[in-house]
């Protein structure tokens, strides 16, 4: 097929697709909505278990609300869950399922299984028809082996060897897709997860600050909080700032004295007991 419409070879943004989108919208097509989850969360299965990773930025629209929040939540001693979406929703749903898993452990006398956590989460999210905005990466090691799942707000789940979620998921997934292989060692797994989260931190506005990592193997879990701090805060002056009088220009002065007036009335009734 001879292509007569070629994209310009050098520089500049091609507006062809924008014209097409406008035309489609005029003809009634609804534009897809934007994913509002400001986060990069990832997980991968390595030789001896799973590694989970997350960035630490919590956003409120364009504002960074928390520069070092914890997005990797405890579910069971052998199961951890990364959460993207509305922070309150992910916290509440992981706390609730963690509590249910503890009761289940007491009732059965056994270690919790990842599929149990998965089913409890997806049933809850499905019941709320997507209104509980929690997109999760659930990983753990139990008696049946290492498991990694993603859970979407509407209640669907995937079972994968490596997974990413959140607004930075595409940046992180590009790192995984090029470098993941089966049978990674612990060091390789942690390095790959850190690289993926860093890709999200540096290329996605909704993700930033530090890298949290969690390594789960049979019988042992290591939560590496702030495994990497690629965005250190550099202060301008270690002595602090001084504001001497006269530095700020005074435009006008108005002083209103507060008057204290106490009125004593004689012969009132005593208060009833």
């Amino acid at each position, binding site marked *: 097929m001879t292509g007569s419409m070629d994209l310009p070879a050098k520089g500049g943004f091609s507006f062809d697709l924008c014209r097409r989108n406008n035309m489609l919208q005029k003809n009634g097509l609804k534009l897809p909505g934007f994913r509002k989850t400001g986060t990069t969360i990832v997980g991968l299965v390595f030789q001896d278990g799973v590694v989970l990773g997350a960035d630490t930025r919590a956003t409120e629209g364009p504002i960074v609300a928390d520069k070092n929040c914890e997005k990797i939540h405890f579910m069971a001693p052998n199961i951890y869950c990364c959460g993207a979406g509305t922070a309150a929703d992910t916290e509440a749903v992981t*706390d*609730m399922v963690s*509590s249910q898993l503890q*009761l289940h452990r007491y009732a059965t006398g056994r270690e919790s299984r990842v599929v149990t956590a998965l089913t409890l989460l997806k049933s809850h999210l499905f019941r709320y028809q997507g209104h509980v905005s929690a997109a999760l990466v659930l990983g753990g090691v139990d008696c049946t082996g290492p498991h990694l799942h993603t859970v979407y707000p509407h209640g669907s789940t995937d079972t994968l060897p490596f997974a990413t979620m959140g607004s930075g998921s595409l940046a992180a997934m590009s790192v995984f897709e090029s470098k993941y292989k089966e049978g990674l060692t612990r060091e390789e797994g942690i390095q790959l997860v850190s690289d993926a989260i860093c890709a999200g931190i540096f290329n996605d506005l909704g993700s930033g600050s530090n890298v949290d990592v969690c390594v789960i193997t049979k019988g042992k879990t290591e939560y590496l909080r702030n495994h990497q701090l690629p965005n250190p805060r550099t202060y301008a002056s270690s002595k602090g700032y001084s504001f001497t009088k006269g530095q700020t220009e005074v435009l006008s002065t108005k002083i209103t004295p507060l008057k204290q007036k106490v009125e004593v009335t004689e012969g009132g009734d005593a208060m009833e007991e």
Partner: protein
Amino acid sequence: MGDSQYSFSLTTFSPSGKLVQIEHALTAVGSGQTSLGIKAANGVVIATEKKLPSILVDETSVQKIQALTPNIGVVYSGMGPDFRVLVRKSRKQAQQYYRLYKEHIPVTQLVRETAAVMQEFTQSGGVRPFGVSLLIAGYDDNGPQLYQVDPSGSYFSWKASAMGKNVSNAKTFLEKRYTEDMELDDAIHTAILTLKEGYEGQISSNNIEIGILRADREFKVLSPAEIKDFLEEVE
């Protein structure tokens, strides 16, 4: 609670001012297998006889001492099924407390809530009181603690206590042997000796159960092997 046909309580006052159903519940407890608890200076121990109705019963399937939270355990005298219901409810209450306050439930709070449940069943429609007395052992920021909860819902804190068939002999024995600065291992030996006093037959690592809380605050039910070691030390 209870059917709509039974909106009246089955536990009613007698002319002498007693709640006869609760008295009967205490009798049920009194005919149950002996259990006891001792609070040491650095921990708590609870123990019970585990006499099975026949040698054909798989003793590993019976667990009379249960954990309610990682740092609180419980043993009973009386009706096993009633105990299971209370354990279930208490565990759930502990979890709800944690979800609400993000603090692990203190021992006194859990005892209070469990006692409240037991009291409910003496004043609600269509239900009967629980036929168990509980010994709740816990270790929190207030140190090691031991509480007894009765079918009426009343609870007491004890330094050492016993319940069930052999209660009077056991309590006398404990009164003689108890010292304020007892170490946990001494308390375990004393507990075993107390059980041995009233035991009909030969005591072994398979027919008693022991639960302990050391300074690490982790409730642990001893395995038959560990019980065997303690039994050998006693002899």
